[in-house]
């Protein structure tokens, strides 16, 4: 299992952002759904080793990230796109992605080819030499995805990756997600249930720091049968699970 979480908790002050989450995931794409403030980003940040949990157990890529050596090995095989992408505006797309490839300790001889591949995969080949300050929001998001996948990670964490992408780019991105999910564990946090339906083999729905549902998209659709809220089957399942959790 690439992700093994048991009773994981993280507080910010008096707020329990993540409250006793249990989750296991292996190769494939896992969609993380939930309303604002459900704890998706906090969970993703713990998975990315940005912040440590306050309690519970967390194992990533069969290693304990609380120890330095294993954490470093995890980070070497990790890709992470945060909700708010930071970037150096003076760097070009290629330089930005190469910068992260080097920080991820890729051998420089391999890095240049990997960078070219990652940039092509996110469709920024024609903007490879453009400075980041000149890119649109959607292009920046794609540059962020490129830096996350440049090391061909075994664990890829994407927080709202399709924010700012136009419909055509989102379709292409889902295709990329499916492909990445064939060899790695991909966790995608999103509000867009159609992305989950199209690209994810499994879905987890968070509510108030807890996992309210975990199953396949079809199972989530089934939960929505007979529920009125939502235009699409997945949305109805999403609403039904949340309504049940609130009740």
């Amino acid at each position, binding site marked *: 299992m690439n992700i093994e979480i048991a009773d994981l908790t993280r507080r910010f002050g008096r707020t329990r952002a993540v409250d006793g989450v249990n989750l296991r995931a292996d190769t494939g794409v896992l969609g993380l759904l939930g309303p604002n403030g459900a704890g998706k980003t906090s969970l993703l940040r713990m998975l990315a080793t940005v912040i440590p949990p306050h309690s519970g157990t967390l194992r990533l890529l069969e290693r304990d990230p609380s120890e330095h050596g294993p954490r470093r090995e995890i980070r070497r095989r990790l890709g992470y796109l945060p909700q708010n992408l930071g970037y150096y505006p003076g760097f070009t797309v290629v330089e930005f992605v190469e910068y*992260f490839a080097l920080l991820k300790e890729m051998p420089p001889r391999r890095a240049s080819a990997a960078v070219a591949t990652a940039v092509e995969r996110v469709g920024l080949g024609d903007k490879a030499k453009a400075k980041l300050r000149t890119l649109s929001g959607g292009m920046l998001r794609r540059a962020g995805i490129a830096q996350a996948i440049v090391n061909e990670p075994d664990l890829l964490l994407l927080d709202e990756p399709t924010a700012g992408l136009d419909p055509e780019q989102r379709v292409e991105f889902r295709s990329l997600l499916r492909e990445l999910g064939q060899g790695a564990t991909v966790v995608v946090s999103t509000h867009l249930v159609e992305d989950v339906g199209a690209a994810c083999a499994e879905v987890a729905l968070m509510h108030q720091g807890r996992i309210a549902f975990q199953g396949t998209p079809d199972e989530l659709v089934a939960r929505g049968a007979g529920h009125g809220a939502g235009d699409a089957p997945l949305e109805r399942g999403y609403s039904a699970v949340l309504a049940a959790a609130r009740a």
Partner: protein
Amino acid sequence: MSAVTVPARGGSRRTRPGIPDACRTAVGRLLFLELRRSTMMWMVPLALLAFWLDTYRSSMALSPLWSSRTLILRQGAAVDDFAPFAVGAAAWVGGRDHRRGIREQVDITPLPRWAGRLAAWGATAGWAMGAYLACVGVLYGAIAREGAAGSPPWWPVVVGAVALVACSSLGFAAGVLVPSRFTAPLAAIATALVLRQTLRSGGRYVLLSPVTSPAYSLAPPKPDAGVFFPYLPDLSYVHLLFLGGLAVTALGVLGVQAVCGRAGLRRLAAGVAAAGLASCGFAVALVGTARVEANGVVVPALHDAADDRPLAYTPVCGGSAITVCLHPVYRAYLPTLTAALDPLLREVAGLPGAPVRVVQVALSERMSPLADATVSGEPPVVRLALDIGYDGAMWVGPGPAGSGSSGHCCTSQQMWTSVPRITAEVLPQVAGAVVDHLVGHADQAQQAVRQGLLKAAGVPPDTMAVFARIEGAPDTLPRPGTPAYTAGERFAALPAADRHAWLAAHLPALRDGRVTLEQLP
């Protein structure tokens, strides 16, 4: 995005031609990326402009001698030009991860954050250092191209380079620890103010600053350092210990934070910071023992006694009546000096007790006058200290005869290549000492002869009074309208041969006070 262009995992092993091997290591490649996008790169033109306006132009106005042309550099002017830019750019780069909201992304990468930070700092320091060394290279090249006499001093260049490394590392650490967008401008302004303050302070511990002032420092750079005595490197050693210590401390602090790597690496960083602090402390202790001597600052624990021995040289000599000898470094100024001194030397040559030679000696005071002459020895020799190094424009004197100027004189080059200017500025000093030695000034007859001789030698009548006022010495020349003044004018009006013959016959008696005013021709 395309899912159909995925190459095999790991990619091909392409190599880029033209990339040096050093850049193929991860840190080397990081450094290469940082160098291409460093903020300091945009600051370089401003630093170059400051260097050209300040250090370069001031230096090239001085005499074409290595000891003179590097005087401004030895005062730390180049550091003053570059440091605010280096500090500001480094602080800006240091705080960029926070400002750009990228900390979360870079902090979770496996490469120790210390290494990443050092690469970013290295690029900033590299640009600052490269620009500084290029500027100094251009300055040294221009000096060498003009065939400057002497040899180039290297210690000031090294100290300046280490000072810039220290400035950039302190700025970078400030940016990392206080990552506000105001940190960079404030750090740059603070650096400029601190350097300005050390420039205006004269305390012992201010010697630790690489920027000094000839007007305030306990030990301003000597204009003839490395000419008569070896260049004393003691203070440079202390600078390297102190500034290098500051740099190492700041760079060590960058690796102490939890995100910077494993505990062992952070302990190493803490050790590096402690070593840097120890180096600074050692330098402070050393400068506390320093003493200022004629040839520079002596730090007993670092001092090499061999540096106290004068450098051997064969003087270059010229002149007709009495030989005038200069250090070979100042060979170019011998014709001008002998021409300016010739009227005086012809007047006194062959008289009993007259000097047989004029020799140049090292400057003995930290704030030397333009020229200082003493007569001593048997047979008497005029020992002449010349401040050829300082910029004459800074020197306030009576100005050359007929120039109508009584304030700023001229540049050093204009000064030392002009017979009228040396006649105005140097001749009175030499003539005063020589004539005083020959004649004395105790009684009216001596004062009258002294006045007559000075006038005959070409010293303007009011110049001695001006010099006496500047030096705070009593004016021993007779005032106009007095009998002594009239006698002096009469003595000066005699034909040179008659004056010389009378002096040859009566000088011992005159010196002993046995000649009255009425007995003068």
